[in-house]
Structures are given as structure tokens and as C-alpha cells.
């Protein structure tokens, strides 16, 4: 086992961080009086608060530590998770979808499905979200315990229970308000810990030119080797990347995952809500550069035996997730190690707090209030929300023990997305932009799409079908294309959901235009969306266009 030696200064930094976060929980408790305060942070936040909290909820240990490891495996192809797998969907959310979400005054995404379709759609989507959240939180908890266990030498069980107890404490105390406050603090701490890593790494290897010199073309370009799956480390074609990652998975996560969108719902006005994902997109690009850059630097060091750098090997298996902690160990002196370890803890806390605050909102509003107790008072909902946090964390602890037995968490994470998020986004986008889709069409679309995706995944895992089964022939099926299978499974889930919804809608009764007003494009009754009279540089569309230009330039330069 490898452990990072911590000096008293490093411990002091960690203690200050924990004490500060715990104090925030107690401090904010007196400002959390109603269920709106708890679940939507009182709807009074600026676009910067929402945008940073939005991005911070996404900066969990999986997204940072996990994807740095993926860069070793997939080279620059890992950057697609930050580019085509994020930016277009984030901009679409801000420019087109947010007005519907924000104006309908919903408290959750399932709440939108109820308003657009019916109660059954809401409950089904809420149940899927809750299952998804427990699985994802379990992975996050496991990764955090892995860091404590492997690099600090702490007992595995103690690491997991201590982390779980701390998250339970502050989310239970103040809900989303506390989660968002700490997410913003953690956002800055995460950057303080990771931004310096690629800087020192580049100095060590001799600048960016060393990356280009040391890596083969498949590892240092984004698209030029995507014509054939045999030419790139992800074993995928551009079709799978664009349709699977860029469309089905990215839109599923960024436009319908309540975990992150909840931050935009707490905005003080529509413009702030629309700017939330657009501000997030700039930080997403920067995060991609830091995380993938760090991974590529490690790849250069691994390819050079004289560097003395190698990944952790456990039970004969390479642990890709060890890249970032091992680089910190290589470059970080006392004090910096404290900031580095604290930033890894902050990633976990930010991700877990986000998971739990959205879990308790969906459970309380869309399952408890909708099915179990329709007459519950605001005070009762607040109590249920706090109780849900504790139960959610206990379930996540169970999920963490399951995740511990999994081979690779990122591949598994994308598999979860393909099953639970892709069918939902297919129906939400279809319903939002086409009034033809009926309530029964929406419900059956989600049900059939989810069932097929889960069945395909289970069949693949128990080896009834090969990994290549879901990959079309023209996309070059390969037994090594586990990630490609996730992307294509998401595409099929999307198409099956869409097809089912259209067919069922053809035979079933629809709502009237009056009932759909405000929930379907073209039937919007709020002028604020189309007639905002503000200067160009304050418009969300303007900043979305700037991100889009940067996104296109990056793709061309690294083609």
C-alpha cells in the first residue's frame, strides 16, 4: 500500500476545511425555515452562485480523479467527455430548455413530467432517478474511501462511514442552501488543489511539445482517427461519439439530471437560470484541459521508464484512478499536499452533497408528497426531506460496498447513464418541442426505453450477448469496445423511447393546447422568454455563442 506522508501543516489545512464546512451547516440552519428554502435555496441566487454551484455539483471525484485515469486509457479521446459530451447539451439547456423548466415553477424534473404528461410519468421518472442516484452516490462514496484507504492508510470501513456521516450532517441541517454554499467553497478549493498539478507536470516533462512528441496520433487527436475503431484507443467511430456520447448520454445528463439542474432552479430570475449552465460550460472546458492534461502528462511519464513514475497495481490490475493522487505525491511538498488531499475530499463532498440534496427533493416531492401523503404540510415535508437524506446516505453506503466489487467505475457509470437518463431525455425533449406526444405516449416511451436498455445491459453482463451486440456493423463492432457499447446502448434506448412514444401517441388521447400552455415550445404564454430587452452582452445567447466558437476552435486545433 502507498501512503502520502502528511505534515502537521497538511493536517491543519484538512482540519480547517472540515471545521469550516461543519460551521457553515450550523450557520445556515437558522436561515432555512420553509421547504422552499431547504429544497430550492429560496430562489434568490445570482447567476454566478448558481453557475458555480451547477459546475461544482458536476466536479465530483469521478469527474476529476476518474477521468484523469480515463486519459491514460483513452488519451485525448477522454477530452470528448468535456467537449462533445458536455458543451452542446449545456448550451441547449441554457438557451432552449431552461425557460420551460423555470417558468413552470416546478421543484424537480419529475415535476415537469407531471405537468407535461401525467402523474404516472412523474412517479416512474422519480423512481428511476432515485435508483440512479443511489448507484452513483455509492460509487462516489467508494472512490472517496479508496483515496482515504490507499493514500492516507485509513481503515476502509472507517473512511466510508466517516465520509457518509459528515455529508449526512450538513445536508440534513440545511438542504440545498447548505449544499450550494459548500459547493461554492469546494469549487475554489478543488481548483486550488488541481490547477497547479498540470503546471508542475509540464515543467517536469519539458512543456506541451513533449506530449505531442511522446504520444502516437491515436492518443493525441480528437477526431482524425475516429474513421475506424481500430485506429483509436476507445475503439469507437465518430458516429458513436456524436450520437451516443454527444446526443443520447450528454443530453440525458446535462438537460434532465435533476442533480445539476436543481441549482439553476434556485436562481432569482429567468436570465440567471439560463446563464447557469452557460457559465458552467466555460468551467467545464477549463476542467477538461486540467484533468485530461494531467492524464496526458502522466502518460508521457509512464512511457518514459527513466521518469520512475508508474501507476498503482493492485492484485495484478492497473488502478487508473491512482493517477492524480500519485502525481500529487510526486510533485507536492508539505502544505501543497494538504491542499491536494483537501481538494480531493472537497470533490467527493461536492458530488455527494449534490446527490443527496437532489435525492431528498425528488423523494419528498415526487414520491412522498405525490403518492404517500398528498396533504403533507410544509413543515412535514421539511422533516421528510431531512429523514430522506439520512436514508439516502445509508443506501449509498450499501452502494459503496457493491461498487467496491466492480472492476471499473467510469465504464459502469456510463452504463448507468445509458439505462436511466437516455430514455428520460428522449421523452422530455420530445414532449417539450412536439405537442403531438400524449401523456400515455410519454409514459410508455420511458417505460419501454428503460426496460430495453436495462435488459441489454444485464444480458451483456451475464454474457448472454457479447459487448459488441449493440454496436452497429458500420461502426466496427469490437470485443474491446465496452465504452462504445455504452454509447450505442444509449442511442438505442433513445430511439426506442422516441418510437414508442410516437406510436402510442397516435392511438391515445392528448391534452388540450390550454393544458399544455407553458410546457411545450410554441405554446408558451410568457413573454419574458421571447421579449427580453437587454443589451447584447447580457444575453444568454451571446455567451452561449462565445462558448460554441471556443468549442469549435478546440475541436479544429486538436482534430
Amino acid at each position, binding site marked *: 500500500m502507498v501512503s502520502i*506522508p502528511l*505534515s502537521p*501543516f*497538511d493536517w*491543519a*489545512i484538512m482540519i*480547517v*476545511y472540515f471545521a*469550516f464546512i461543519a460551521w*457553515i451547516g450550523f*450557520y*445556515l440552519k437558522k*436561515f432555512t425555515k420553509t421547504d422552499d428554502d431547504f429544497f430550492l*435555496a429560496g430562489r*434568490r*441566487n*445570482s447567476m*454566478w*452562485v448558481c453557475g458555480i454551484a451547477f459546475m461544482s455539483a458536476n466536479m465530483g471525484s469521478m469527474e476529476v480523479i476518474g477521468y484523469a485515469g480515463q486519459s491514460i486509457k483513452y488519451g485525448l479521446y477522454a477530452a470528448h467527455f468535456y467537449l462533445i459530451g458536455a458543451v452542446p447539451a449545456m448550451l441547449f439547456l441554457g438557451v432552449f430548455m431552461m425557460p420551460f423548466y423555470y417558468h413552470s415553477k416546478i421543484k424537480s424534473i419529475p415535476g415537469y413530467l407531471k405537468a407535461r404528461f401525467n402523474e404516472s410519468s412523474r412517479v416512474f421518472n422519480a423512481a428511476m432517478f432515485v435508483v440512479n442516484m443511489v448507484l452513483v452516490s455509492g460509487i462516489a462514496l467508494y472512490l472517496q474511501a479508496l483515496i482515504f484507504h490507499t493514500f492516507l492508510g485509513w481503515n476502509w470501513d472507517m473512511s466510508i462511514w466517516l465520509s457518509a456521516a459528515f455529508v449526512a450532517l450538513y445536508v440534513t441541517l440545511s438542504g440545498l442552501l447548505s449544499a*450550494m*454554499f459548500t459547493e*461554492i*467553497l469546494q469549487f*475554489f*478549493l478543488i481548483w*486550488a488543489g488541481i490547477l*497547479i498539478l498540470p503546471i*508542475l507536470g509540464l*515543467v*517536469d516533462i519539458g512543456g506541451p511539445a513533449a506530449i505531442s512528441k511522446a504520444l502516437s496520433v491515436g492518443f493525441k487527436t480528437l477526431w482524425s482517427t475516429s474513421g475506424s475503431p481500430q485506429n483509436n484507443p476507445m475503439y469507437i467511430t465518430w458516429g458513436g461519439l456524436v450520437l451516443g456520447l454527444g446526443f443520447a448520454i450528454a443530453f440525458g445528463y446535462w438537460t434532465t439530471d435533476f442533480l445539476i439542474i436543481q441549482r439553476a432552479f434556485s436562481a432569482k430570475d429567468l436570465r440567471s437560470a439560463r446563464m447557469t449552465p452557460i457559465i458552467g460550460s466555460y468551467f467545464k472546458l477549463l476542467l477538461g484541459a486540467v484533468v485530461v492534461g494531467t492524464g496526458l502528462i502522466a502518460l508521457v511519464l509512464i512511457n518514459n521508464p527513466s521518469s520512475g513514475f508508474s501507476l498503482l497495481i493492485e492484485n495484478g490490475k492497473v488502478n487508473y484512478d491512482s493517477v492524480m493522487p500519485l502525481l500529487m505525491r*510526486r*510533485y*507536492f*511538498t*508539505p*502544505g*501543497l499536499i*494538504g*491542499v491536494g488531499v*483537501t481538494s480531493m475530499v472537497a470533490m467527493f463532498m461536492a458530488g455527494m452533497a449534490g446527490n443527496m440534496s437532489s435525492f431528498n427533493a425528488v423523494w419528498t416531492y415526487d414520491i412522498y408528497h405525490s403518492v404517500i401523503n398528498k396533504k403533507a404540510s410544509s413543515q412535514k415535508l421539511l422533516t421528510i426531506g431531512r429523514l430522506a437524506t439520512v436514508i439516502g446516505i445509508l443506501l449509498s453506503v450499501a452502494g459503496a460496498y457493491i461498487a467496491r466489487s466492480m472492476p471499473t467505475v467510469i465504464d459502469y457509470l456510463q452504463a448507468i447513464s445509458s439505462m436511466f437518463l437516455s430514455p428520460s431525455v428522449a421523452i422530455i425533449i420530445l414532449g417539450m418541442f412536439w405537442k403531438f406526444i400524449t401523456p400515455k405516449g410519454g409514459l410508455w416511451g420511458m417505460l419501454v426505453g428503460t426496460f430495453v436498455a436495462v435488459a441489454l445491459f444485464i444480458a451483456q453482463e451475464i454474457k448472454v450477448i457479447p459487448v459488441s451486440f449493440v454496436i452497429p456493423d458500420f461502426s466496427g463492432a469490437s470485443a474491446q469496445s465496452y465504452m462504445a457499447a455504452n454509447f450505442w446502448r444509449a442511442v438505442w434506448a433513445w430511439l426506442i423511447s422516441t418510437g414508442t412514444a410516437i406510436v402510442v401517441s397516435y392511438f391515445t388521447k392528448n391534452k388540450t393546447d390550454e393544458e399544455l400552455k407553458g410546457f411545450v415550445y410554441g405554446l408558451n404564454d410568457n413573454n419574458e422568454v421571447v421579449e427580453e430587452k437587454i443589451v447584447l452582452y447580457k444575453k444568454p445567447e451571446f455567451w452561449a455563442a462565445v462558448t460554441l466558437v471556443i468549442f469549435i476552435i478546440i475541436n479544429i486545433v486538436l482534430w
Partner: protein
Amino acid sequence: MDAGKKGMRSIWFLVGLIMFMIGLIELSAGIYDLFYPSNQDVKLAYLHANIWWGVLIIVAGIIYIVKNKNKYVSQ
């Protein structure tokens, strides 16, 4: 959460506070390390990143504290 007269402290003030505290400890570690170098095998230790990175974090913290010290969120 970031404007108003009395009530909750501005989040940006709290961001400044924690960055200042953490930067200060990091800088102290860097200065201590100058006089009593740790015997760990750390690459690029001669760059004393903990000193200049600590100073940068302190400066960022001070900017946030000064700009937001009188801001409260109205209730």
C-alpha cells in the same frame, strides 16, 4: 445569497475567508520547509511551489474578503 443589507453573510466573503486561511497555512508550510527541508523525495521541490501557490491563494482570498466584507443577504 450575494447581495442585500443584513442577514446571511455573502458566500463570496466566506470563500475569501477559507482561501485566506488555507493559503496562510500553505505559505507557513513553505517557509518552514525552507529552513527545515523535509526528507521526502519530491520532484521539483526546488521550485518551492508551496510558497508561491500559497501567496496566490492568500491574495485571491484577500480580494474576496475586501470586496465582500459588508455584503449580507437580505431575508
